């Protein structure tokens, strides 16, 4: 992302100049993973398998979208695991209340996530508590609420038809609906980040909140809003996951915190905020999903998956995520 207008040597093609090295590396790694996968299994490159991967990636993609908005402000959202579960459980719970409940199931699940996001956002923006602690606490509260609600067991409610249709159905040309939902969400967020005052303010806050405040940005309101969006998107991911499995389960969100952060950071978004591109997050999400899929195809045991997973994330970050040397 070079923004300086100084004349550069004409030899360098302009396309190469504009591509973020982090995003380029991430896409390079995707190609590499596909090659490795195709060695192991011949149908790894088939359209069906790739579409299946993109469908699975959509759930992570929607959750990572919310995470990215928060990370762009230099904050972090650690409440993902139980906000996802709240979204899933609450939408499934609403589904058992007749026709009205059925129609309102998806919005209700998302609203619960937005409410939790508002609590986090209020703590970060107005009480000035570090986001890491607030979101951890909100995560604990959300877990507590769900444990009380379910009595410690997985609830018996099932997902509505609409939820299952969005998560598992296909519309045209066999493209999964989940992928279309992710694409629409992504397009909205790209618009939000690059074409609206809100988006500019998010980047500005990530660079330096003081400066943003002094230039007249209502920083506290923006932070509150961003956390609400993140909570809503996490819960929406949970709603879709409930549709995918056709019911909600305890700790179904646990597997999404690390991948969401990893996808955002591997996509070149600075964890310190102010720098990042949504295309990078898309690359990060696909990369993480492919990595998980390949580890599954190679039939590596769970312990090996965890180790390789952690090692790959550190290795990739060492490739391009390093800070400048202090001198």
């Amino acid at each position: 992302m070079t923004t300086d207008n100084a004349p550069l040597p004409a030899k360098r093609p302009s396309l190469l100049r504009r591509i973020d090295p982090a995003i380029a590396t991430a896409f390079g790694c995707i190609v590499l993973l596909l090659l490795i996968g195709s060695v192991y299994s011949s149908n790894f490159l088939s359209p069906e398998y790739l579409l299946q991967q993109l469908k699975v990636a959509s759930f992570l993609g929607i959750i990572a979208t919310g995470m990215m908005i928060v990370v762009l402000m230099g904050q972090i959202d650690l409440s993902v695991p139980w906000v996802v579960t709240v979204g899933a459980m609450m939408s499934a719970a609403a589904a058992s209340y007749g026709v009205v409940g059925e129609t309102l199931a998806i919005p209700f699940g998302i609203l619960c996530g937005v409410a939790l996001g508002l609590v986090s956002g209020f703590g970060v923006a107005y009480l000035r508590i570090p986001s890491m602690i607030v979101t951890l606490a909100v995560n604990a509260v959300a877990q507590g609420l769900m444990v009380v609600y379910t009595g410690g067991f997985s609830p018996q409610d099932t997902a509505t038809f609409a939820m299952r249709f969005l998560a598992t159905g296909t519309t045209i040309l066999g493209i999964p609906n989940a992928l279309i939902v992710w694409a629409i969400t992504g397009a909205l967020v790209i618009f939000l980040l690059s074409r609206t005052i809100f988006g500019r303010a998010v980047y500005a806050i990530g660079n330096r909140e003081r400066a943003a405040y002094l230039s007249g940005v209502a920083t506290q309101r923006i932070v509150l809003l961003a956390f609400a969006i993140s909570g809503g998107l996490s819960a929406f991911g949970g709603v879709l996951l409930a549709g995918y499995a056709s019911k909600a389960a305890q700790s179904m969100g646990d597997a999404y915190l690390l991948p969401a952060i990893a996808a955002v950071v591997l996509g070149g978004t600075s964890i310190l905020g102010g720098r990042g591109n949504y295309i990078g997050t898309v690359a990060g999400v696909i990369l993480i999903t492919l990595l998980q899929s390949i580890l599954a195809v190679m039939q590596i045991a769970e312990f090996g998956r965890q180790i390789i997973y952690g090692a790959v994330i550190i290795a990739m970050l060492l490739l391009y995520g390093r800070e400048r040397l202090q001198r």
Partner: protein
Amino acid sequence: MNDWRYRFAEQRGTLLALLIFLVMFVIYVSNHPAGFTANVVQTAANKGVLLAFVAMAQTFVVLTAGIDLSVGMVFILCNCLASYLVVGSPSTTALGLFAVLATGLVCGAINGLVVVFGRLQPIVVTIATGAIYFGLALLLRPNPGSTANFNSDLADALTGKLPGGIPASLVALFVVVLIIWVPFRRSVIGRAAYAVGSSETAAYMSGMPTRSAKLVAYALSGLLGAIGGLFLTFFTYSGEASLANGNTYTLFSIAAVVLGGVSLFGGKGSAIGAIFGALAFRTIGDLLFVFDLDPLWQPLFQGVVLLLAICLGSARLFQVKNRLDLFA
């Protein structure tokens, strides 16, 4: 000695944590059906000490303005390792203890090396290394289990009562503070760790050993996590690679550190405060039991207490005169 006011201000967080703990403990004991007996104290101490060790581990890193989200996983990994190695005769047990502690130290040192020389953000690094350590724990204990000739004599000795009814685990905690925290606090490296937490650039410019300070802080964090893991093994006689347990201890360690008056922005607080924070947090969690409420409500109760406790920290906002200071 006219600097008492300064010294008091320096220890305010620790003293506040001590006060919270004392109040909570008095409420707990006075409502406990058995009252203030050695057994009640021993049970409370054994529960609290585990979290106290993990909270101490977190403190070292938080003082340097970092965060260690792998501390719960080091704890779990060392628990699994100890369930294999702390076995047999005194000499093999000693060797096992040494191996477990060394493993924790190495885990912490790896975190430190990647953060310092890899120049990556601690939060991402420790999430990723946490996955690796948990993977190793799963490798050791795919299913919860124990070893037949586990040295339960040592375990009983360290979790039982000393003559006079003093819980042995509290004494162990005291000894660990004495041989790890106090020397660290008084050494050049320890001072440098505080300085790095306050302002890394200023510490670097003043010629402080910023890199080794961070490295030592992370390594000691791993070591303390290992001690916590050892004690978990002493209590349960077994090892279990439980993801939920690891995450819970990581979360609670941060809560304990915050309750204990250690600033997450670094450079302020002490491990003593974190210990009282941990004991207070444990007592709060157990309050529900003495009031005979449904244990189902415990997670919610703990979460709400945690949320309220951290909101208390924002009372300083009332002292802010210039709105700009909000965004410092």
